[in-house]
């Protein structure tokens, strides 16, 4: 009988990655371009072989590494020489001490914003795509592809251009104009699908099973186990930037829930490897009310996510059927965190708040995170006396419409008289 399993690829060099393991049933498979368990359809994750890692030596090796995610190459499914290959070298973004924002929100403990808008294509997606590109190379894919809510499309287009691969990416046809331009400029194919993100995702899953999709690496579908690992680097950087310490509380936006689950995985790996002291931490998830199936399930005490039809300005979070949602619920409950949501009006207000207090212009997803941070403090769910990190995943230039209320505060004639008359002097 023909097998649909990917060919065994035990000879590929993906560093410490040893196998694919089902998160649901634990069945292991050889490393290959596969994302779903043949036994139960559960998601596959990377299983690592960390035997022989010397903790003291590892920390020194990381600190001496490049100022990018590749300083953590020993903890990622990438070859050891990854930093010398053509790629976007994302990561090592600022952990901003957000004292002014903290004061405004009533914090007595330290508040930080991990500002990932500084990545090469201005969102955290460069982290995950960089890992997926290494997997695409290992499996000899010639076309890099994805289903995207916008940010990922740009990250894939840019990474493919740098790596010399063809790109063909799929997005909902009605995305923000800036995101379309930022994805198209790299010269690959950019295809608008008449439907929402969940429709795009479904189409890509079908394309993979079709001969037309042969030789294609879909970063968030058949390369998903490798891709997802890139989000761990957010956790690694936050801990290293805190002086190799775990944050006490962390607020993460949720679309599919992948980033939140990988941040938790990254924190646990650092603990297991002895790179940080094991102490409790709480993880909070942030959604927009117009697409909040995980928050709804959390508040209702349910384990099952009921898919929704998204209706929010936070399009990068508009995934109505979040694949990792059940895991987000598990993590929020296990760590004593919560999942909360804010309205589009609160998102816009939070974008302004972060910009005004910290000089960070976040895209709508960042507005969701900061809006939820505020709501969590106000509702007593998050303790403002504890050290807290909120993640801004992207640049406000990509979602300018959300900040359309911002504009000239005055128009004057070029004279001092006019300046004073306007109350500016």
């Amino acid at each position, binding site marked *: 009988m023909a097998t649909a399993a990917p060919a065994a690829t035990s000879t590929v060099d993906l560093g410490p990655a040893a196998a694919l393991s089902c998160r649901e049933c634990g069945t292991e498979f050889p490393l290959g371009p596969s994302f779903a368990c043949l036994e139960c359809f559960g*998601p596959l994750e990377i299983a690592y072989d960390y035997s022989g890692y010397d903790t003291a030596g590892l920390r020194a090796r990381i600190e001496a590494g490049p100022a990018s995610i590749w300083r953590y190459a020993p903890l990622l499914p990438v070859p050891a020489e990854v930093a010398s290959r053509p790629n976007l070298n994302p990561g090592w973004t600022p952990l901003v001490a957000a004292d002014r924002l903290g004061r405004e929100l009533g914090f007595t403990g330290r508040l930080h914003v991990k500002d990932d808008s500084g990545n090469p294509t201005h969102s955290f997606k460069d982290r995950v795509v960089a890992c997926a590109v290494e997997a695409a190379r290992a499996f000899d894919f010639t076309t890099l592809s994805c289903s995207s809510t916008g940010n990922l499309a740009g990250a894939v287009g840019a990474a493919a251009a740098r790596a010399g691969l063809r790109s063909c990416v799929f997005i909902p046809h009605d995305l923000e104009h800036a995101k379309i331009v930022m994805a198209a400029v790299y010269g690959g194919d950019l295809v608008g699908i008449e439907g929402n993100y969940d429709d795009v995702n*479904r189409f890509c899953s079908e394309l993979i099973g079709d001969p037309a999709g042969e030789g294609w690496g879909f970063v968030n579908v058949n390369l998903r186990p490798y891709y997802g690992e890139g989000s761990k680097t957010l956790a690694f950087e936050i801990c290293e930037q805190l002086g190799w310490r775990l944050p006490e509380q962390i607020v993460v936006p949720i*679309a599919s829930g992948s980033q939140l689950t990988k941040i938790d995985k990254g924190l646990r790996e650092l603990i297991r490897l002895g790179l940080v002291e094991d102490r409790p931490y709480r993880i909070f998830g942030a959604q927009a009310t117009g697409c909040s199936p995980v928050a709804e399930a959390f508040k209702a005490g349910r384990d099952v996510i009921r898919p929704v039809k998204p209706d929010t300005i936070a399009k990068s979070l508009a995934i109505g059927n979040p694949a990792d949602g059940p895991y987000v619920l598990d993590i929020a409950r296990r760590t004593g965190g919560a999942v909360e949501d804010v309205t589009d009006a609160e998102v816009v207000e939070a974008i302004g708040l972060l910009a005004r207090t910290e000089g960070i212009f976040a895209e709508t997803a960042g507005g969701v995170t900061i809006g939820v941070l505020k709501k969590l403090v106000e509702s007593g769910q998050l303790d403002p006396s504890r050290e807290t990190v909120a993640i801004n995943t992207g640049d406000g230039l990509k979602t300018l419409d959300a900040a359309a209320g911002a504009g000239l505060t005055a128009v004057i004639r070029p004279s001092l008289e006019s300046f004073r008359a306007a109350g500016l002097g």
Partner: protein
Amino acid sequence: MSATVRIPTILRTYTDGRSEVTAEGATLAEVIADLDRNHTGIGARLLDDTGKLRRFVNVYVNDDDVRFADGLATEIPGGAGISIIPAVAGGC
């Protein structure tokens, strides 16, 4: 009712490598039972021990996610196209 069912790569071991098969049934549950009669073992891949659709399996009938309809009780119109897709995602 007869429906055309698109089979994802990871289940084609049960359909001799075919990406599309036909199955009979008035509801999705009946279609899956019919699939299993003709492709032994495929039903256990789609349904858990309690007979519910597995958490990471998405099924679409004529482009509509059955979770927005009646799940396994979703009616299958004659000539319907059914897609079975493992759950995956992007975004944050």
